[in-house]
């Protein structure tokens, strides 16, 4: 605590301003009457209290998912007139590749949906699509940074950390920002833990990754096999001596906060396994999420876990579909049909179940669900059946709190190759996410190395057209 002693300076070291809530609620949870009302420090009333961000890691193809292009279907094999060979990571042929999937219209909105999303197609009237997204990088690693932090370089805080910093915790027994990665053992996304890093924000705001195997949170149970009673006894003794220690350092708030943090750790051992355990869910819910489907069950479990964490008060949850290697993610370089069919099969049912389940519980209105990858894919082919990276056009969708369902915003050209109308960078998506959570992205700042940083750097405009 850099030698400071006042409560004010303690809060200051937590990042001043909004971030103070995290500590407030921590103190509050142990019987302090100043329990902050939720969203007390938002800039304006929040539509969403929590965010679930589903990352289709590897770069899903817009023209094979949500951006239907009849012209592309008609002109399969023809040359793409103004193809830019520097668009992709590899080299592309310049020949248009029609989507191998059938599209049909769904819902009141008449949204065209690829056949690979039979479950999600039932929810299009709750989803708002931004078809004109772009990133600056055509390479996974920097593009993932861009998606998460707004900047393509390493070392900046991701959107989840900014959220946790800005809004604080709703449940002091759990981290405010949780991350789940590929549950089929295909590894972490490229950049690994840096994707959910807090950058220069205080470390408490980094994402806590729930592991797919073994203990979901590190050190959640005693490696020495201590019973709860033994731990309690040990902690009582710790508290007794800590209390005497504290007497010698009257006014040192950090010391008492640390005493509380240890108590929270003890309680988290109780609450976290409960939240993470989906065994008590009734059969119809388990079926809804596809837990008996051999391919869809892993991602379905994660979606169901996300709902439980959300109910327990976690602010920001990110779920990654797909792992490290190209072929083990939505990175369909060689065979777009096989790749996307596989990954859609894994995820479609779980995501749709999440939307349905949140809705039936009345939680969708206060939850923001976001889904996209780090970039899109080329309309011309790579090899005969693959598509390369395309940073110039991709689709993101939003659903839930404050979002106008069934909207299609922004446009790509007739082949889905470039954005044509209302191009939107990740900064704009970030600004929109913060906005829906009651935060003005221009006013959420953190001083580091002499500069006030924000998530959107000097950019960002809220995509008002998708707001309810």
């Amino acid at each position, binding site marked *: 605590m850099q030698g400071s002693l006042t409560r004010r300076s303690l809060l200051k070291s937590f990042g001043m301003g909004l971030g103070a809530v995290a500590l407030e609620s921590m103190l509050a949870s142990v019987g302090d009457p100043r329990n902050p009302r939720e969203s007390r420090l938002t800039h304006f009333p929040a539509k969403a209290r929590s965010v679930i961000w589903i990352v289709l890691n590897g770069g899903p193809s817009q023209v094979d998912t949500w951006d239907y292009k009849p012209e592309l279907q008609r002109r399969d094999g023809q040359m793409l007139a103004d193809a830019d060979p520097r668009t992709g990571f590899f080299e592309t042929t310049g020949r248009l590749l029609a989507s191998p999937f059938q599209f049909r219209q769904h819902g009141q909105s008449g949204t065209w949906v690829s056949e690979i999303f039979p479950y999600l197609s039932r929810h299009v009237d709750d989803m708002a699509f931004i078809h004109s997204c772009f990133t600056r990088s055509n390479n996974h690693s920097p593009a993932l940074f861009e998606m998460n932090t707004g900047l393509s370089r390493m070392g900046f805080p991701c959107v989840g950390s900014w959220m946790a910093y800005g809004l604080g915790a709703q449940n002091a027994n759990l981290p405010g920002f949780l991350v789940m990665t590929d549950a089929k053992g295909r590894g972490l996304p490229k950049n690994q833990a840096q994707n959910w890093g807090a950058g220069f924000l205080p470390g408490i705001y980094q994402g806590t990754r729930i592991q797919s195997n073994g203990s979901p*949170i590190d050190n959640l149970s005693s490696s020495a096999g201590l019973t709860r009673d033994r731990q309690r006894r040990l902690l009582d003794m710790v508290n007794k001596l800590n209390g005497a220690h504290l007497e010698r350092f009257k006014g040192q708030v950090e010391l008492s906060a640390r005493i509380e943090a240890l108590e929270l750790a003890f309680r988290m051992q109780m609450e976290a396994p409960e939240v993470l355990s989906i065994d008590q869910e009734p059969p119809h819910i388990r079926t809804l999420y596809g837990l008996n489907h051999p391919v869809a069950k892993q991602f379905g479990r994660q979606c169901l876990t996300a709902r439980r964490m959300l109910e327990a008060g976690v602010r920001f949850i990110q779920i990654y579909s797909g792992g490290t290697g190209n072929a083990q993610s939505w990175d369909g370089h060689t065979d777009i049909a096989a790749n996307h069919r596989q990954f859609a099969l894994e995820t479609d049912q779980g995501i749709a179940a999440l939307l349905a389940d949140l809705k039936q519980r009345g939680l969708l209105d206060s939850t923001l669900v976001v889904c996209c990858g780090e970039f899109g894919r080329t309309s011309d082919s790579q090899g005969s059946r693959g598509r390369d990276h395309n940073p110039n056009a991709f689709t993101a969708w939003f659903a839930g709190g404050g979002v106008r369902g069934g909207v299609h915003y922004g446009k790509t050209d007739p082949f889905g190759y470039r954005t044509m109308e209302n191009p939107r960078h990740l900064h704009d998506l970030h600004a929109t996410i913060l906005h829906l959570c009651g935060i003005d992205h221009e006013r959420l700042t953190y001083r580091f190395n002499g500069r006030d940083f924000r998530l959107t750097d000097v950019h960002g405009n809220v995509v008002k057209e998708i707001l309810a």
Partner: protein
Amino acid sequence: MAEQLWSLQPLKRPEVPRATDGWALNPVDQFIARKLVNTGITPGKKAAPSALLRRVSFDVTGLPPSPNDVAAFCEAEDAVYGQLVDRLLASPHFGERWATHWLDIARFAESYGFEMDQPRPDAWRYRDFVIRAFNEDMPYDEFVRLQLAGDHLKRTNPDAWVATGFLVAGVENLIQTRKEFERDRYDKVDDMVSTVGTALLGLTIGCSRCHDHKYDPLSQRDYYHLAAAFGSTVSRVKEFERGNTRFKSFVATEAADGKIPMVVVTEPSSKNLPSVPARIHFLDRGDVKKKREAVSVRYPNVLIRNGAKPSRWSQGSSGQPEVPGRVALARWITDHQDGAGHLLARVIVNRVWHHYFGRGIVATPSDFGTRGDPPTHPELLDWLAGELIQNGWRLKPIHKLILTSATYRQGFQNAATDSRVVGYEELDPDNLLLWRRDPKRLDASAIRDNLLAVSGWLDSTPYGPGSLDQNHPRRSVYLTVKRSRLIPFLQSFDAPNALQGIGQRQVTITSLQGLTMLNSPFVDRAVQRLAKRLAGLDSAGDTRYVRDGFLIALGRLPSGVEERAALEFLSSGQAAARRDFCQMLVCLNEFIHIE
């Protein structure tokens, strides 16, 4: 405006004030006392001997005192304190401790970062260079010169080459696309310029990459002129020979033929890779697509004194051509007469102060610019910087001055036992004037090393390749820093992520830290060993067991109340009570704090 910034002014050689008799032990105290006296505060009482011993041991070596030390020191504190400081500063653990601080500033890691995060298996030699340099008290100006240009300055000395690991320690993307290659290259240069700026000069030069800032003393033009020194600097694994042994190290060197090739590409193909000229161009808004004229190495006007010409630093010895840009930069940055040396000296003495007191004389140790904090004791800062230069840039005398001051030896002043303190808290609530000593949490490395040391598990082998296993019993400075596999224990207690230089670690309070201390296998192993160590002493009875436990883990004996409580804890009849008692000790706030 910017020219008037305090940090850019020449060093003053202030008179040492005579502010107090009796309390002050050396000039440092006179500077501190003057402000206290003027504010109406009486300087604080000395810390208890056991607290002081523990503090100075951790501060200087990062390790706890041994139980024998405690007994000896508490008997004859005043007589032996000076010797104790000398002994600690001469200990090989001093370099290990202070290297940890420097490696933070240098964003040191042993992998490339980005998606593959390939290892740099030979990068640890730079870490050893830093430890040795601190242990041998290498003059700081030489330490800086070697890190900036050792490859040129001492071409036949492998150690000098190894020092350049500083420049290339940052992240580097080994999977480039043609589209991004040039931007990656400017990012790499930016990483070097920015790190040199914050680490050595306390200036956020990197902020000027895209445009001028009203608040920055350096302009965008200054940025590119400094960047030019690194235009042809690339990383390389180089093989060296010393005597009969050959070894490799990860170092900086100049690119061949004045061209920067696109780096290793693992996919899609490495055929016909492009290269760009090594010259650095001024970039409009920092955009590689908006290149303007090529720029040469020049120094910011605000850091040139006495009308010196840049040729002063760039000229070769008689008849020789100009020296390489990095050599010239190294000369300028260490030139305390005409170049930036006065700032270099201020920044490093402030860093030393920062680590001893938890807050620097300038509270933003890597930002001496207009947006950083002004110094609380500007004259003391200048005096220390002047002492450093006068001592031939040797840092150990500065350490000793601080450590032997009454200011450093103060204790906490408790409002509960001293009625004047309430008034002092009104006058100076954040203790900026240093009228008392606040408790300080140990950093991640020291907490881990403390667990190893008190449990008798520590393997104190110095130097050499590291390990990625957090259960390896060597000191934390020897754990491998792989950016994608940071050591969870250290991460949990706020070890930095080695992406940008950090002069001041965060101190967070999280429940995950609590879970680590309660449940992690590492802590369990340490606790079991501590229990065994205690049992192996002459600790047949519970009383002896409790006393030895306190002495080893906390560097003091228990109070009467504590001893009774501990005995009651042990007498519960539970078989595992002794083990749990040991875990209780390491879970205490006191275990991870020094006072």
